[in-house]
């Protein structure tokens, strides 16, 4: 393990290591070059790898996501950055109609070893068009893989896994977690996609968190412990492939589950996880699988309201209690 690194730097370091290791890995995005990224997430990469491998693009998401796909089909292993997750919409045709399907359509002749990374999440008063996370949308498309790390160590190890995967992987980075610091792994510490992680063991309820919600779940678990409730916290980490076995095992241990999703509840990832759990472990359930998500509306700019958009530890505690009370 190397020393404490920020989430932001952990991804940057992972990318640098992968670019060192494999000359086919290139970085494409807006302001990723000399500017070092709008969130300083690619600092130093341009100086180290030069303009042929670190490419600044015009504001043309559809175009440069499509170009990255073509480059992947022609032998490169591109990492494309879409500045805000909200702008994935601009490249969605390329992602859904091309990248996700090429391997299948070509009968396996072409692969798309592509990583699309994007900064998402509520916070910093960035407003309704700069705060969304479409992980459910892309997880819904066969052919895509979707990853959502919660902390620096996972960010690094999962990013490396994403780069080494031969499929298109959408990598979500909660930008409000960019400053979080923790020890991270070395160059060959590569995670496996499709694995969740138990962050805290418990026996009364499983709090299943996606991204930032995991940290909030840990906070809630501490408070529940004060009331004699033993909450397990599971970090989803990979939405597609989903660790059905791991999540089911957690449910068998605790008999209750509350899914925490940093996106609107309706038609979200929480719905998929809840449905899957009740299918795989119905007889183990002592209560319906609960879901907490973001408010069902555009994210307000006003800080006083923005604060209310995501469930906080208090709401999670409340949600857990309601399920335990049944």
């Amino acid at each position: 393990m190397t020393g404490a690194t920020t989430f932001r730097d952990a991804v940057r370091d992972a990318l640098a290591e992968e670019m060192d290791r494999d000359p086919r890995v290139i970085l494409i995005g807006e302001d990723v070059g000399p500017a070092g990224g709008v969130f300083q997430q690619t600092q130093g990469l341009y100086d180290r790898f030069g303009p042929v491998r670190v490419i600044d693009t015009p504001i043309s998401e559809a175009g440069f996501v499509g170009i990255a796909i073509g480059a992947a089909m022609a032998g490169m292993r591109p990492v494309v950055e879409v500045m805000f997750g909200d702008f994935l919409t601009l490249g969605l045709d390329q992602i859904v109609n091309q990248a996700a399907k090429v391997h299948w359509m070509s009968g396996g002749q072409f692969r798309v070893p592509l990583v699309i990374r994007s900064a998402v999440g509520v916070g910093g008063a960035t407003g309704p068009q700069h705060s969304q996370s479409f992980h459910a949308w892309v997880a819904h498309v066969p052919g895509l893989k979707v990853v959502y790390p919660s902390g620096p160590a996972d960010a690094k190890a999962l990013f490396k896994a994403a780069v080494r995967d031969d499929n298109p992987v959408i990598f979500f980075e909660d930008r409000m977690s960019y400053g979080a610091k923790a020890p991270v792994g070395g160059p060959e510490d590569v995670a496996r996609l499709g694995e969740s992680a138990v962050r805290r063991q418990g026996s009364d309820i499983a709090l299943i968190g996606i991204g930032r919600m995991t940290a909030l779940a840990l906070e809630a678990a501490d408070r529940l412990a004060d009331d004699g409730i033993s909450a397990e916290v599971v970090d989803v980490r990979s939405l597609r492939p989903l660790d059905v076995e791991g999540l089911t095992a957690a449910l068998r241990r605790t008999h209750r589950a509350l899914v925490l999703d940093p996106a609107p509840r309706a038609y979200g990832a929480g719905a998929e996880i809840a449905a899957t759990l009740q299918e795989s472990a119905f007889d183990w359930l002592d209560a319906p699988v609960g879901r907490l998500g973001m408010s069902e509306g555009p994210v307000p700019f006003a800080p006083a309201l923005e604060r209310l958009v995501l469930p906080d530890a208090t709401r999670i505690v409340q949600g857990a209690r309601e399920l335990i009370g049944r």
Partner: protein
Amino acid sequence: MLESSEKTELWRQMLRIRRFEEQVIALHAEGEMVGHFHVYIGQEATGVAVMAALTPGDMIFSTHRNHGHYLARGGDMAAGLAEIMGRATGCNRGMGGSVHLADPTIGMPHTSGVLGSSAALAMGAAFQMQRQGARRVAVAFFGDGALEEGVALEALNFASLWKLPVLFICENNSEGAIGAAKGGYPGSIMGTERLTALPEAFGIETHALDGTALDTLTPALRDICARIAAGGGPVFVEANTPRWFGNQGLWPDLACGPLDLGHAQGTVPLPDGPDAAWFTTHDPLLRGARELLAAGVSQAELTAIDRAVVEEVAAAADEARRGPFPTEAEARALVFAGGEA
């Protein structure tokens, strides 16, 4: 040449924008507003000249850099500041913030933060104006970067094809940076030596104008808007404005201090150093002041105008501060037309 009295009034409107933006920067520095924001400093002449050419029924569509457009079009100053500060008394009831200032009552129905949108939205408004036989204009404001977005080009195609009454105003504040990424943050990345070649390719009447020269800009825009309203088809105007030095970094920076009329009045020595040209030549407020003084307007009059504007801004800021923050119930009620789904 503009009449002195008219030019003075236009200059005053520019000054209102300048002092407003300086106030926004101060509010941010003092933590009274949060979030990212973009200021219109250096581009005031363009916004003011365009609005002077419009009639009440016309509509404007702006970008993240919208404060100047909002004010010049007649947006309430206190409501603008309140919105930027996230208050329920803001023009968007605190839902959007700096990036999305809008007010349907002044013909500014919606402001998108996604580049290229303004062209598409303006086109839509123009389509409806044309169907209604209204002699009106829809204005799309955007920067030089927006032409990198495919949807902006698709909008040019539609506007030209259907002869829609659209005025495309491209405020190019990356002068000298077109053609390749050239230092500063950020430059335009366009594979064309002349940005105007793009609208020309769609058969659209195109002009490249000095975005800081009120005397030439205002009459030119009046003529253009009159012809558009009369059904002459869309027009594309590239308004060139030198980039304000405070826009070099990620956040607006009032490094050389607020506007000082003394620089125009000759009572304060001009700064030297790398940003000297801003004070001698580029600042449209100083340029306008110098021209007015040369035309016989007194220093005292300009100073008086400034004082009044500064007071107006301060009063607006106070009013904005008194506004309550919006409630969750208010936000939820706005999600769907007709109340909650």
